């Protein structure tokens, strides 16, 4: 049994005018999502306008940090800082709020991976004033 994801590098993101608030909040362990104030849809990835109804009237709210695994893979080779971290898990997690987002799974044995597995967010400090969101199996 191989528990994976405890040796992952945490390369810093590149915040921009669409995403600065999101990445700033990660320093406090808060996972922000945007919602459209006109049509109500949750927006992912964060952006200037609602991709569903084109409204620019959007606002941030804090997500639960919980979700389920939608799909996953285990790269056996990886680029750059991840080169020495293989094997590890890249996944799409479906957030409770709806969006399916790409991320890593940690603290999980590769042979235990399944679609539908409940997971919760953990934060890995990048050392650059923000943190990466990753997910681990929900306790209990």
């Amino acid at each position, binding site marked *: 049994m191989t528990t994976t994801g405890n040796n*992952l*590098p945490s*390369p*810093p*993101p*590149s*915040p*921009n*005018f*669409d*995403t600065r608030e999101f*990445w700033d909040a990660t320093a406090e362990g808060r996972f922000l999502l945007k919602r459209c104030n006109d049509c109500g*849809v*949750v*927006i*992912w*990835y964060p*952006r*200037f*306008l*609602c*991709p*569903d*109804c*084109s409204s*620019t009237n959007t606002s941030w709210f804090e997500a639960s940090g919980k979700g389920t695994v*939608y*799909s*996953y*893979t*285990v*790269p*056996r*080779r*990886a*680029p*750059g*800082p*991840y080169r020495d*971290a293989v094997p*590890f898990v*890249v*996944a*799409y997690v479906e*957030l409770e709020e*709806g*969006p*399916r*987002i*790409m*991320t*890593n799974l940690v603290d999980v044995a*590769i042979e235990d991976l*399944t*679609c539908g597995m409940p997971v919760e967010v953990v934060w890995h400090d*990048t050392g650059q004033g923000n943190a*990466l969101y990753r997910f681990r199996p929900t306790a209990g």
Partner: protein
Amino acid sequence: MSIRGKAFVAGIYEHPRRDIPDRTLTQIHAELALGACADAGISLHDVDAVFTDSTVPGMGSLSLVDYLGLKTTYLDNTETGGSSYVGHVGHAATAIAAGKCSIALCTLAGKPRNPNRGGGGGGGGRGGGGGGPNPDAQPEGSFEGLWGLGGAPYQYALNATRHMYEFGTTSEQLAEIKVAASLHAQHNPNAFLQQVFTVEEVLESPMISDPLHRDDCCVITDGGGACIVVSPEVARDLGRTNAKILGHGESPKHADNGRVDLTYTGAVWSGPRAFEEAKVTTKDIRYASIYDSFTITVLETIEDLGFCEKGKGGEFVLDGALVAPHGKLPFNTDGGGLCNNHPANRGGMTKVLEAVRQLRGEAHPAVQVADPQIVLAHGTGGSLATRMGSATLILGQEDA
């Protein structure tokens, strides 16, 4: 055909600012799109075609329609410097005249007074990171590029996992696709891989990114291909067997505001458009060049084009269904990208070329389909797991 009187400019908008340090390039494109649509009196979601240049962060118009949430039938990133945008209007008129779209957004944005400062991390979609803020990193970059995913195989593996979970598809079924391609490649003296594979050999090849093995992946090759498209008048004068273009459909498939669905491709939209224009159905297709970057690409595309029900691709490919000349759906008789050639890591052109060879009766005799009449070539680009281009072309013999 002339475009004279076939299209009109209905809305215009010029950004009011001349120094924009507080916007990403993509945000400016979004503002321009909203402004032009407002001037035309249409909703942004009425737009069904986008024409822009290669400077839009990411993959040009494909990344832009992802950001804007548009479902389009036509995209164009023609890059000819400052003349691009005049050309784009002409291209838009041509596409509209041809019935490929009806409301085209043509857009140009730039920020030479506020060039990128910082290292560009997160923009490359590879490992990301480092060098400080990059306001014009592609909008999704930091949300997809920081997780250690390398190139295409690692991404397409996510599709394979989900397809297996939802439909019970197996690695053995995926391997059958490689086996079929290899049975064809053995007859192609130029093929990069000429050995015939067995299912067991595919499954025993090294795992690249679960559940995709090395032999689920296409070859990496130098080279390329080209074709000439002419008017009916020129075709008549050439006096050789020409492939008649019967229909074509295109569609991006993007992350759709977080509603990622890994079980299908853009072929669900490009395929029907091509079939409708060609006035044929899947039953008429006697040979298909199916984009085969990976075995899972073929499996999902066969389902999406309607050759079998969604989720049944794994069963469909068994019993030599893809093997020429007698299978249910002979495919990639040159050996495809899986065994023959995938030049520049892009297999679209070779798909067209083998479809034309089949129509002309110039495929290798061992894999030539008898009098195929009507054939199909399908191309896939970008990533099945995030945002992709999809194009379907239907060709026929001259009397088709």
